């Protein structure tokens, strides 16, 4: 009989598997604690004081958001600029903005957005990515969508499109009418605007480069 080797001992491998799994799990939990702190939502104070949060508070909808190259980090980051009107106001309180975002996030789930679109790059690939949809040049003053929907601002054009997507086809692949109400549309646009302010480590790259990136200041 050959010598008993530790490498062929079942108990040894059972213990190794347990230790490896335990160690990896503890590391993951520790990283989760750190990440959770870093991706918790900021608040109005942070925005007023210029404190940068990876996920800003809901009142970010009161500000202009652009996406600019950061030389230090080597990729684009969202930049929160001066005040900007959102459906005619730039003084949404923490509660008001929070309620809009809440409605928008519920809407994003209730309408199954992720089963055609990608959000933060996750979801289905049947329709455009919505991560930075808010700063897409197509919805800006030079883009086609404001003229198409007959609206003068980005948020109104988006809200109009969301309520009657089948009336404004941009491609043979049309978005169906999902029964989105005017109120829900407003919430969804707030959700999109908020999402565009999330620091996604430079995803997507070169967003809007061909049309000339939107400049903030």
């Amino acid at each position, binding site marked *: 009989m050959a010598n008993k080797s530790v*490498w062929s001992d079942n108990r040894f491998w059972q213990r190794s598997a347990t230790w490896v799994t335990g160690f990896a799990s503890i590391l993951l939990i520790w990283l989760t604690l750190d990440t959770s702190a870093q991706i918790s939502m900021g608040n109005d104070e942070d925005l007023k004081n210029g404190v940068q949060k990876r996920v800003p508070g809901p009142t970010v909808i009161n500000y202009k958001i652009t996406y600019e190259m950061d030389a230090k980090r080597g990729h684009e980051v969202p930049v929160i600029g001066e005040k900007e009107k959102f459906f005619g106001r730039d003084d949404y309180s923490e509660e008001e903005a929070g309620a809009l975002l809440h409605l928008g996030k519920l809407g994003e789930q209730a309408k199954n957005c992720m089963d055609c679109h990608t959000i933060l790059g996750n979801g289905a690939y049947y329709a455009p990515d919505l991560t930075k949809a808010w700063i897409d040049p197509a919805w800006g003053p030079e883009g086609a969508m404001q003229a198409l929907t007959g609206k003068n601002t980005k948020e109104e054009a988006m809200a109009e499109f969301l309520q009657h997507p089948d009336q404004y086809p941009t491609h043979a692949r049309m978005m169906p009418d999902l029964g989105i109400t005017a109120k829900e549309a407003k919430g969804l646009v707030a959700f999109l605007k908020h999402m565009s302010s999330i620091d996604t480590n430079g995803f997507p790259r070169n967003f809007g480069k061909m049309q000339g990136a939107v400049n903030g200041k």
Partner: protein
Amino acid sequence: MIDQAIVHTEIALDDFLPIFVSSALVLVFGGVYVGIYTAVKVKFLKPWAMSIAYLFWLLTAYCLYVMGSLMHVGDFTAKALVVAAIGLFLLPFAVYYMQHQVHEENEH
């Protein structure tokens, strides 16, 4: 201004195809290496085939190098790739050694 040294590197348009091909080949060649190694050990193939196995490992390592340099991976990822290449090299040895030990202990 040390931080400015981090240049923003972009993958050249023409480099995407070589990147995808080489990274796919990493595992294909790697799999062939491990496959031939095992096949020789269980006597499906003659011993001389082992040199072909090592040749495939070299190809794997080369593909990893091509992939990594075209992607402009950072220092850390470059090290991770080297570790992966060495890990792949040792893997069949370890597997075979352990399997063999157990068989010896249980069947003789």
